[in-house]
């Protein structure tokens, strides 16, 4: 009999089921789908965008009827014929194409003297399509079909392909819109109540500030206005009514006293007076509107001020109520600190995904198109004999629609988001999808960036706060400047999309919420005020009952499952939110101390498709989604044992508070937290396989572990996201002991035989692109760049010269399988020079071959020839060459376990020198035990023990967070197999052949090879290239630069007294220069005579070239640096003086 208190058997299936239909990137895909399906239509049909008029022809009207985006297609043209075919992501990666679908609009065009014409399917650009979205050609395809299209079934999707590059739009964390937030102002140290309004078209900010105990309204549209005047402008003329809106408690009234005076001082009695007063404060004037300040003020108040609060026919009462609430919150906060809102509280944050950001961008570009069209029409239709037809208009639309395509592509490609309407100019919105390991790609799709500036030295936004529990991984964040600003979603977190609010609104009203406008202001504060998405809807007398009933309706599926219902007893508010960007996570419901999901429900997994089971549980009210705000009303038990009568919810599993990247760590709950954070960074650098289609991909750089192994000690979350199928590392046999002294500072000792047998072997693929372009000056085909066959041996051409052409085939492109060394030519490209007079027959053709630059040889893996002529680019042919190098671990290569313990290879030891145990076991790798005490990675010890047993039993062991194997039992099991219960063995030294005096902890630990390899970093030079200007050695490995003796190094030489060394390093090996100097005038001379001074007392001295340069530059500025020469034998005395 299974009791209520026992954890569910096979509850991992719940997580797997959830992730199988959701994946880790549903937030991106949902957001994009919502944008394509809902928002596009809304944008096009919004009153501001729907119509294009023409200033020169008032009869002209263009009206958008509908918009749609098609699946990605590809148009191949041949002569006059063109054919459309479906485009698949893999082709895009190979061909440097953009995975985009056509955007079509239907428009109705009214023209003078003609019947309105409906033009259907006008192409206005191409929309990049997110992989895995509804518009993606891969959606709904079976696994077999996915293989056919060259895709990996485990690929996370949720990214875009722009010109062959995979780009992710990172999730952006922002402060919530349309909510009152009372906070302390950094500058004045006083409380401020702020609202950021965001309504489809307008974005504005309004806040209540204090100056000398008076309240002012600070807004983006007018200068600071006294509070009471604003109230009066909003139509509340009576001071008593104003106070009633804010609150009649004596303490509140007292705070308001000072502000009373303002309106009487300014002699403002009527609404009109107030409007005029505010009209004068308006900063930016509306163009083309009436100059009457009162009308302007009315317009501003209606449209910009508190824009999210609806205002019908200039009825400002709802805005006045809202303003009253803002003031009330501020005053309450002044009295009691607990009313102050926490900006870092996660309920006050909203996540913006790909769809939201594209929406802003698209609207901007769409408006741009409309205004361009409008400008063209003004010009064209203004002409006297205009023959413009509706067809011509659509042709123009198609032509300028290319700007939309370009704009979208450029923004996603560069990550620069420039939205003119909101004066937004943001950098780094998108990033290239990191394909170093599968984990890195997953991590990237769950990554969130905060908007807080990196340079700001505040800890608040970086801190891990309680409200992030379960939503954000506590471990997965970079260290350094981005620490805490870049976060990762936890395994089960979802980001909501906007819900169509009408249904919720109606339901709320039918449940006893009374419209606030029907209430006397004095009555508000006795009841709970109900907000829907930040807008006051009404009041309710029995909030608990209301909230309970509403939640029941949600569980029954009458309202959207993601709508959050939050009761704030402190502020006497009920918040109902259905807006987008909230973080939600699923939890099991608990009623009367009993979990609603029980063992018998797990049978569903046997009967139904795993994908649907989880959703069924949600539909039947066994599992529900809670957002951060609503979690405040919940009492969530971690385990079934913790469930009491007060409990309202139960965690699905504790491990779900971690992200998929942290999920790689076995037993993370036994590690010092910083170690898990380090592993999260290193897991993204570990080499493994990135997908099943690696062999046909053509990334600029791609690493592939040749013999990857699945870890012996796994976690449930790894399996839920397929990380065990695309692993990155080896189960290395590790002995924790000291060996030689090449293992200090975390260095590792490796077994040479293990390396011989393939341990850590990695293939590195590098891509190089050669493009043949059309000549810009003359587009005749004979001036095009071309690839020619290599020269053949003749009398003039010597064998030595031909050596660099050795790998070329007859087509002038390198042969697959040939080995390339530095200086070899792999594509023999020629560029014809256009002569000044094009008639001449002798065209000069210059050599512009692609020369292999890597220092170490690579093998040619593949050659791709792409003809992308119909892309509108100037290229005629692109040759992509992919080189491969197989790398065996060598001294200095970086390895790491899954516990943030990285180290480089310090020594490679022959197997016969390695220690061995009484069973013939021999380590692959030796790790120094000093790595343990300060790092406190107990989990690594546990991993070893479990791995050892797993290897003996032939079973995978589990080290799932907050669960996993019981180490005591593992020890006992090991003992039963004749091993020491703590995993320590007797080892025999391979060098002396004697038993070691201590017992050694040994067993398998999963080790990752990291991408940092010595061969990529090794650098030395004696002589080499110099900087042109200063004649000093150039900088950087790529340019074969020198090693800098910096200031601190110089200080060391000085302190040591190594002055000759100093001269050698800073002068002789750098930029020595011989120059003649005249003893009398102290100036540089070109030879040994100074004609100015008429003397031959001119001496040659050696000085740094850059010093000479400085003197000459000073001379150019009319400053004369005079050199005083002292005979070398007198130099000593001179310096003494």
């Amino acid at each position, binding site marked *: 009999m299974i009791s209520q208190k026992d954890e569910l058997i096979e509850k991992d299936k719940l997580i797997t089921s959830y992730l199988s239909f959701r994946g880790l990137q549903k937030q991106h895909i949902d957001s994009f789908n919502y944008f394509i399906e809902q928002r596009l239509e809304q944008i096009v049909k919004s009153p501001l965008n729907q119509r294009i008029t023409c200033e020169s022809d008032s009869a002209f009207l263009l009206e958008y009827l509908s918009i749609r985006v098609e699946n990605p297609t590809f148009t191949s043209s041949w002569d006059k014929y063109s054919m459309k075919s479906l485009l698949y992501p893999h082709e895009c990666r190979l061909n440097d194409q953009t995975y985009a679908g056509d955007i079509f609009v239907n428009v109705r065009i009214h023209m003078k003297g003609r019947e309105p014409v409906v033009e259907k399917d006008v192409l206005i650009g191409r929309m990049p399509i997110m992989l895995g979205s509804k518009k993606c050609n891969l959606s709904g395809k079976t696994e077999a079909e996915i293989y056919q299209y060259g895709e990996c079934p485990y690929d996370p999707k949720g990214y875009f392909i722009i010109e062959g590059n995979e780009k992710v739009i990172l999730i952006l964390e922002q402060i919530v819109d349309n909510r009152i937030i009372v906070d302390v102002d950094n500058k004045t140290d006083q409380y401020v109540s702020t609202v950021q309004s965001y309504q489809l078209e307008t974005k504005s900010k309004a806040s209540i500030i204090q100056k000398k105990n008076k309240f002012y309204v600070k807004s983006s549209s007018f200068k600071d206005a006294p509070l009471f005047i604003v109230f009066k402008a909003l139509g509340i003329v009576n001071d008593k009514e104003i106070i009633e809106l804010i609150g009649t408690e004596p303490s509140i009234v007292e705070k308001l006293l000072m502000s009373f005076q303002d309106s009487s001082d300014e002699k403002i009695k009527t609404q009109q007076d107030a409007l005029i007063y505010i009209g004068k404060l308006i900063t930016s004037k509306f163009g083309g509107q009436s100059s009457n300040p009162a009308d302007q003020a009315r317009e501003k108040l209606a449209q910009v001020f508190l824009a999210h609060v609806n205002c019908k026919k200039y009825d400002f009462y709802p805005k006045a109520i809202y303003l009253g609430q803002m003031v009330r919150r501020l005053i309450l906060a002044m009295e009691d600190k607990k009313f102050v809102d926490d900006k870092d509280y996660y309920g006050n944050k909203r996540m913006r995904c790909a769809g939201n950001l594209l929406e802003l961008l698209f609207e901007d570009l769409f408006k741009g198109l409309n205004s361009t069209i409008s400008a063209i029409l003004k010009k064209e239709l203004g002409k006297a004999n205009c023959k413009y037809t509706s067809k011509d208009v659509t042709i123009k639309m198609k032509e300028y629609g290319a700007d939309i395509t370009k704009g979208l592509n450029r923004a996603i490609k560069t990550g620069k988001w420039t939205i003119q309407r909101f004066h937004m100019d943001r950098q780094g919105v998108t990033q290239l999808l990191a394909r170093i390991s599968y984990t890195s790609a997953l991590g990237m799709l769950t990554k969130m960036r905060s908007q807080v500036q990196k340079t700001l030295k505040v800890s608040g936004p970086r801190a891990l706060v309680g409200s992030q529990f379960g939503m954000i991984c506590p471990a997965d964040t970079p260290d350094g400047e981005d620490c805490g600003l870049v976060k990762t979603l936890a395994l089960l977190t979802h980001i909501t999309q906007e819900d169509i609010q009408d249904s919720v609104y109606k339901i709320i009203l039918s449940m006893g919420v009374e419209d606030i406008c029907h209430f006397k202001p004095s009555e508000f504060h006795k009841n709970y005020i109900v907000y829907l998405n930040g807008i006051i809807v009404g009041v309710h007398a029995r909030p608990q009952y209301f909230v309970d009933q509403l939640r029941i309706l949600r569980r029954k599926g009458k309202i959207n499952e993601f709508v959050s219902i939050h009761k704030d007893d402190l502020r006497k508010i009920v918040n109902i939110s259905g807006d987008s960007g909230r973080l939600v996570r699923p939890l099991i419901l608990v009623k009367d101390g009993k979990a609603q999901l029980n063992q018998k429900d797990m049978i569903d997994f046997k009967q139904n498709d795993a994908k649907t089971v989880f959703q069924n549980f949600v539909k039947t009210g066994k599992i529900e989604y809670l957002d951060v705000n609503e979690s405040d009303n919940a009492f969530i038990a971690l385990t079934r044992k913790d469930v009491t009568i007060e409990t309202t919810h139960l965690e699905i599993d504790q491990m779900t508070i971690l992200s998929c990247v942290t999920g790689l760590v076995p037993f993370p709950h036994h590690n010092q937290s910083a170690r898990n954070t380090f592993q999260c960074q290193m897991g993204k650098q570990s080499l493994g396989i990135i997908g099943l289609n690696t*062999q046909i991909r053509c990334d600029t750089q791609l690493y592939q572990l*040749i013999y990857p192994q699945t870890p012996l000690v796994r976690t449930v979350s790894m399996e839920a996201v397929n990380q065990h199928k695309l692993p990155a590392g080896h189960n290395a046999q590790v002995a924790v002991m000291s060996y030689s002294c090449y293992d200090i500072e975390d260095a590792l000792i490796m077994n*040479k*035989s293990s390396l*011989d*047998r*393939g341990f850590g*072997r990695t*293939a590195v693929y590098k891509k190089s692109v050669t493009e043949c372009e059309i000549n810009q000056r003359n587009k005749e085909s004979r001036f095009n760049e071309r690839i020619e066959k290599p020269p053949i041996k003749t009398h003039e051409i010597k064998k030595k010269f031909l050596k660099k052409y050795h790998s070329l085939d007859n087509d002038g492109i390198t042969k697959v*399988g040939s080995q390339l060394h530095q200086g070899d030519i792999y594509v023999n490209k020629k560029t014809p020079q256009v002569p000044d007079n094009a008639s001449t027959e002798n065209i000069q053709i210059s050599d512009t071959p692609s020369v292999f630059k890597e220092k170490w040889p690579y*093998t040619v*893996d593949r050659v791709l020839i792409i003809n992308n002529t119909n892309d509108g680019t100037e290229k005629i042919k692109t040759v992509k060459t992919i080189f*491969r190098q*197989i790398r065996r671990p060598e001294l200095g290569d970086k390895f790491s376990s899954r516990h943030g313990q990285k180290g480089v290879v310090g020594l490679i030891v*022959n*197997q*016969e*020198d390695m220690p*061995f*145990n*009484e*069973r*013939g076991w*021999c380590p692959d790798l030796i790790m120094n035990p000093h790595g343990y005490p300060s790092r406190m990675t107990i989990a690594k010890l546990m991993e070893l023990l479990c791995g050892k047993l797993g290897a003996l039993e032939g079973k995978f062991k589990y080290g799932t967070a907050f669960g996993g194997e019981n180490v005591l039992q593992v020890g006992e099991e090991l*003992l*039963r*197999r*004749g*091993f*020491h*219960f703590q995993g320590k*063995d*007797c080892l*025999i030294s*391979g*060098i*002396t*052949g*004697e*038993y*070691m*005096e*201590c*017992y050694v902890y040994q067993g398998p630990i999963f080790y990752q090879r990291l991408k940092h390899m010595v061969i990529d970093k090794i650098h030395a030079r004696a002589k080499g290239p110099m900087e042109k200007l200063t004649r000093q050695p150039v900088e950087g490995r790529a340019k074969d630069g020198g090693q800098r003796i910096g200031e601190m190094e110089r200080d060391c030489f000085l302190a040591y007294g190594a002055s000759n060394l100093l001269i050698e390093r800073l002068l002789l090996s750098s930029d020595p220069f011989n120059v003649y100097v005249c003893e009398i005038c102290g100036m540089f001379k070109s030879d040994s005579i100074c004609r100015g001074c008429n003397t031959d007392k001119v001496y040659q001295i050696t000085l740094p070239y850059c010093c000479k340069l400085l003197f000459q530059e000073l001379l150019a500025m009319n400053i004369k640096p005079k050199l005083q020469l002292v005979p070398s034998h007198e130099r000593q005395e001179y310096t003494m003086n």
Partner: protein
Amino acid sequence: MDQHKLQLKEDQILKPFKQEKFNIKQFQRELEINILSKTDDKIVFEMINIDAPIANSLRRIMIAEIPTMAIHKVQVIQNTSIIPDEVLAHRLGLIPIIADPLQFIEKDDQEEYNELNSIDFTLVAKCEKKPNCRQDDPIENQYTNTTVYSSSLIWQPKGQQAKQFANNPIRPVHSNIIIAKLRENQELNLRLICEKGVGKRHAKWSPVCTAFYKLMPSIIIKNKLDTQRQEKLESLCPMKVFGIKGNQIKVINPRNCTTCRECIREANGFDKDIELNKIDNHFIFSIESVGQYEPKDIMLQAIEVFRSKVQLYIKE
């Protein structure tokens, strides 16, 4: 303490201080070798009255200095499989080859390949559709060479080699090692050249999977135990080293001991009663052959190499 006993404690091993000098006469007189078990690829024997340095030298030589033949050069004529050339060559190199290395000489860098220093193999495999196959058959039945095994390596005798190795043709030790997997129209066409080498250079030349030894345990029950504790001790040892015979607990299977040290663990309460020792001149050797040699030949070879090394040392 006994001169020849290592005493195992719970947290460390106590070693005796040795003053004895190596005496060749005594060594010749006292050395004793018994074969404990022997199969085709593994031999276990004990050597008594031998010192660790000598035993270890033999072990090291077995791993690193006994020559074998292994594929060292691969000429890739065609490889359209999914395995890159370098990886394929690496995989081929690790295939053990039966060929008496004594019949060959190690190739010098400048030397050309000839019948004395090399063996040639070819590997030709193409995956093609079989005639009369059905769509729903497993892929192996539809195509030829879906998996290329080491049995596809074909020896190409050079010069006198065919005659020389007529009784024991040169071939891979195992015929079922997977080299590569092919799919339709993928092709392998390789020429492989074996060279003679030693494990020191690359592990592929090592003739042993592993060669190791352990010391013979000597377990002493110091104190008399009552029946209850006797039974407890008997069941304590996972390898059943102890047994009760006629009301008295005895060490019945000392060779079973895996040094798990459960019997001397303080928590079990027998640490005062039991002494766990190792006899430091009683070596139990295990040699697991890869297959080129018989296990016992590896030992003989090792002794041979050892002797020549000693002679070299004496000469110098």
